[in-house]
C-alpha cells in the first residue's frame, strides 16, 4: 500500500488510465490515511467515508483530491474554518472543484484552514491548529495549512488551497511541497467562501511541478458565474526542459534583504547559483514600492473582508445566537461565531472604510497597489521571471506568534506583492534549514504560468529535493 502513496498524481492517473491500478484501491489507500490522521496533524475537517459510487472518467480519472474547507462542496461541510459556519452544507459546488471532478478527480476530504483564510500559521481555525508533518511542534503555515500538511504527509496526492496574500505559497514552503497562485482571474472564484475578492485565487498543492501543471490545466477558464474570471489564453503546458538557457531572472533587492533568516538566505543563494549553472542570467532589480505592499495589503484585504463577512449575521445560514431584537442577534451571533483574528481584521477593515478615514487608508492603499503593479511591469521589461525566498523564515513553533499580530503579518512580506499585482507565482522546495523545508518563489507576468512552471520544473529536477521523510 505504501507504494501507491509514493506515486505522483500524474503517475497514478496514467496507471489508472492504463488499467494497471484501480481507482477504488487508490482512493481507499488515501482515505484510510486521511481518516486516521485525527489530532496528529489535524489536517482534515471532513473525510469521505467511502469511495465514490461511480467510476470516474477523464484525464485525471480516479486521483483523489483534498479540498480546502472554504470551497463549497454540495452536501459536504464547507465551513471556511469557522464556528459561524460549523456544519454548513452548501446547495452547490464551487466551479474550481466541479471542473476537477468533471476531469475525473474524486473528493477525498475537506482540509482545515485558518478561519476565513485569515492567517499564516493555521492557528486561527475554529477546529484546532494544524501541525507541520516535518515537526509536529511547528506550524504548517497558513491559511491553507491543512491542504499543505495533507500533501506533505502523503494523506492526499494533491490538494486545493486558496491564496490571498500568500496562503498557498507560504504553507507550501513551510511544508516542503509545491504551491502555485495563478494569475488573478484565471480560476473562477464561484463557490469560494470569500475573504478578499480582488485578491483571492484558488490553486494547487502538489508534490511536484508536473502535478501542479496538470491540476492547474483543468482549473483555469472563464466562468459566467464569476464576472472577474478570464478566458485563459492557450493551454497550460506540462513542463519539460533541461536547462534555463536564455532565461533572465531578476532578484528584487527589497524582498531579499534584511528580515530573511540566514538558513533561508543560504538556500536561496545556493539556488541562484544553481540557476546560473543551468544557464540562466541572474541580476538584481528594484521593486521600489514592495516595502509598502504589506501595509497596503493589510488595508485592502481586511476592508474587502469586512464587506464579505457582513453576510454572516444569523439570518439565512450558519450560527444564530437568539436575542431580544434583530441588532442583538446580529452583534451577538458575530461575536460568538468569529474568532479573534477575524474580528481584528473586520475591525481594521471597517475602520479603513469608515467615513473620514477612507481616503487616507483604503484610498491610499489602492494607489500603492497601482505602484506595486507598475513596479512589476517595469521589472518584466528586463526580466522573464523574478525570484525571492517564499517565506522569510522556516516553520515557526506553534504559539510563537499568536500574541503578536504584526509579527504574524510579516510572514507574508515576500508573497503579498504578487497578490497585489495579480501576477502568478509558484513556490518549490529548495532545501532544508535545521531540518525544516525552505521554499523558493518564482513569479512572472500575468498569464505566464507555462513559463513559470517550465523554469520551476528545471530547478526542481536539478535540486532533487526529497520530501519523503514527511510521508511516514
Amino acid at each position: 500500500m505504501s507504494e501507491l502513496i509514493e506515486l505522483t498524481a500524474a503517475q497514478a492517473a496514467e496507471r489508472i488510465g492504463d488499467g494497471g491500478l484501480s481507482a477504488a484501491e487508490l482512493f481507499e489507500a488515501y482515505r484510510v490515511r486521511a481518516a486516521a490522521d485525527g489530532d496528529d496533524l489535524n489536517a482534515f475537517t471532513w473525510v469521505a467515508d467511502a469511495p465514490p459510487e461511480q467510476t470516474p472518467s477523464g484525464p485525471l480519472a480516479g486521483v483523489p483530491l483534498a479540498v480546502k474547507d472554504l470551497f463549497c462542496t454540495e452536501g459536504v461541510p464547507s465551513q471556511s474554518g469557522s464556528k459561524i459556519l460549523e456544519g454548513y452544507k452548501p446547495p452547490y459546488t464551487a466551479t474550481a472543484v466541479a471542473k476537477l471532478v468533471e476531469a475525473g478527480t474524486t473528493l477525498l476530504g475537506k482540509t482545515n484552514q485558518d478561519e476565513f483564510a485569515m492567517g499564516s500559521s493555521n492557528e486561527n481555525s475554529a477546529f484546532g491548529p494544524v501541525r507541520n508533518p516535518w515537526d509536529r511542534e511547528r506550524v504548517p503555515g497558513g491559511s491553507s495549512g491543512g491542504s499543505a500538511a495533507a500533501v506533505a504527509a502523503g494523506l492526499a496526492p494533491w490538494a486545493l488551497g486558496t491564496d490571498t496574500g500568500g496562503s498557498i505559497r507560504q504553507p507550501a514552503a513551510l511544508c516542503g511541497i509545491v504551491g502555485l497562485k495563478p494569475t488573478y482571474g484565471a480560476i473562477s472564484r464561484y463557490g469560494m467562501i470569500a475573504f478578499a475578492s480582488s485578491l483571492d485565487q484558488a490553486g494547487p498543492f502538489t508534490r511536484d511541478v508536473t502535478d501542479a501543471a496538470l491540476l492547474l490545466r483543468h482549473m483555469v477558464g472563464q466562468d459566467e458565474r464569476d464576472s472577474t474570471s478570464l478566458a485563459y489564453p492557450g493551454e497550460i503546458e506540462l513542463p519539460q526542459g533541461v536547462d534555463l538557457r536564455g532565461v533572465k531572472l531578476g532578484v528584487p533587492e527589497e524582498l531579499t534583504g534584511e528580515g530573511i533568516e540566514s538558513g533561508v538566505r543560504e538556500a536561496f543563494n545556493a539556488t541562484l547559483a544553481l540557476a546560473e549553472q543551468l544557464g540562466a542570467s541572474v541580476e538584481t532589480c528594484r521593486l521600489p514600492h514592495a516595502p509598502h505592499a504589506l501595509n497596503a495589503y493589510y488595508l485592502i484585504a481586511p476592508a474587502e473582508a469586512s464587506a464579505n463577512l457582513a453576510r454572516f449575521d444569523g439570518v439565512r445560514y450558519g450560527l444564530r445566537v437568539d436575542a431580544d431584537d434583530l441588532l442583538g442577534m446580529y452583534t451577538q451571533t458575530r461575536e460568538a461565531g468569529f474568532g479573534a483574528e477575524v474580528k481584528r481584521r473586520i475591525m481594521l477593515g471597517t475602520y479603513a472604510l469608515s467615513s473620514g478615514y477612507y481616503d487616507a487608508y483604503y484610498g491610499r492603499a489602492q494607489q500603492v497597489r497601482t505602484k506595486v503593479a507598475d513596479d512589476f511591469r517595469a521589472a518584466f521589461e528586463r526580466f522573464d521571471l523574478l525570484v525571492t525566498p517564499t517565506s522569510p523564515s522556516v516553520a515557526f513553533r506553534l504559539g510563537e506568534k499568536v500574541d503578536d499580530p504584526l509579527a504574524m503579518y510579516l510572514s507574508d512580506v515576500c508573497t503579498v506583492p504578487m497578490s497585489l499585482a495579480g501576477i502568478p507565482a509558484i513556490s518549490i522546495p529548495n532545501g532544508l534549514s535545521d531540518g525544516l523545508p525552505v521554499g523558493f518563489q518564482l513569479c512572472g507576468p500575468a498569464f505566464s504560468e507555462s513559463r513559470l512552471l517550465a523554469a520551476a520544473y528545471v530547478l526542481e529536477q536539478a535540486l532533487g529535493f526529497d520530501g519523503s521523510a514527511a510521508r511516514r
Partner: protein
Amino acid sequence: MIDRAQVLHVAKLARLALSDDEVERMSRELSAVLDHIEKISELQLDGVAPTSHVIDVVNALRPDEPRPSLPRDVALASAPEPLEQGFGVPSPGAS
C-alpha cells in the same frame, strides 16, 4: 491612537458585540497595526490612479435572459428559523 470610543464606534458599524476585554485588547492591537500601516502616508502618490481591479475586465455581462434560481426549499434548507416560506428573524424592536 485608536481609542476606546473609536473601537466602540467601529464595533457598532461592524455589528460586533465586543466584550470589555476585547475592546481594550482591540484598541492596543489595532493601534500597533495602524502605526505600521500608517507608513503609506509618507509616500508621494499625487496623481496615481487607484487600482480596484488588478486585471481589468470591463462590462462582464451576460444576456438578460431569466432562468431558474435556487428553489425555495433548498434556499431555506440551512435557515436557522424557516418561517412561512421565508427567513424568520427577531423583530428590530422599537428603535
